[in-house]
């Protein structure tokens, strides 16, 4: 089953192809990865764990997405204060100094409309909900895989990315 040129960048009809791909083949292999095009060109990885930063970076790299990494929520906020902006932010939850919930709230308060996907090992409904309520567009349980990232990118296409207000 080949999925040539899965174009996540355009909305029309494509989300069906990606949707089908994800449903029928939850494992996306290296070949398929090369064919996934996306509108996302920049991403910020926010995670206190060096292993996760490396893995998330490689996931993004393989999709041609340029990424930067920071080690906690405060650094994520600070990097935006320098005027930088990213299409996608992968936000860990538990981090020292400023956690994912606080950082997400702060970024939304600052008027940052980037897609923010929460990534965490926390799986209790209340904890997930609290994280979503902080202003996430999506949430995935760790560890992140190619399929989960593809699903996030797929959502990027589908959502109009309305500014998140309370």
């Amino acid at each position: 089953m080949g999925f040539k040129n899965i174009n996540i960048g355009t909305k029309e009809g494509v989300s069906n192809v990606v949707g089908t791909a994800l449903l029928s083949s939850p494992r996306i292999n290296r070949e398929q990865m090369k064919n996934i095009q996306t509108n996302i060109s920049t991403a910020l990885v926010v995670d206190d764990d060096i292993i996760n930063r490396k893995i998330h970076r490689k996931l993004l790299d393989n999709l041609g997405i340029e990424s930067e990494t920071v080690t906690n929520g405060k650094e994520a906020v600070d990097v935006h204060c320098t005027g930088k902006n990213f299409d996608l932010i992968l936000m860990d939850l538990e981090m020292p100094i400023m956690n994912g919930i606080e950082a997400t709230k702060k970024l939304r308060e600052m008027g940052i409309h980037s897609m923010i996907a929460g990534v965490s090992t926390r799986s209790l409904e209340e904890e997930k909900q609290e994280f979503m309520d902080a202003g996430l567009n999506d949430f995935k349980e760790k560890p992140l895989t190619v399929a989960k990232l593809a699903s996030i990118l797929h959502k990027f296409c589908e959502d109009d990315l309305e500014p998140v207000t309370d």
Partner: protein
Amino acid sequence: MDLVQLQRQFVDYTTSLFNEGFLDDQFNQLQQLQDESNPDFVVEVVSLFFEDSERHLNELTQSLEQQNIDFKRIDAHVHQLKGSSSSIGAQRVQKECINFRGYCEEKNIEGCRKCLQQVKHEYVLVKNKLETLFKLEQQIIAAGGSI
């Protein structure tokens, strides 16, 4: 040993690691990510895991030797170790960490100490297995083959 035998050995060994629960699908995910632009990706990630784990295990050992045990601190270390073992697919280490956190919650010192031994044991096992796997890989590459 010729190349074909080496490759067969590699496949058999990898399969056994999955069958015995040392590794889970997340390890496959890492292998999928490796490519020509970063041919040492898996080895690099696993090396980070080794360094990180040894640091946490040392901290845990020290923390459990204190007069006043700081369970919060212990839990934080175990949580991180659980996270990193999960990220590389070291399933048995991850499972022991889950048990460990249970004892932390109960503030059960004996339970924690036993669990630490279990975690260390599983860590040493998976470390040896992975190092063996990487050696096999190197032999295959040296013999002109590829994984």
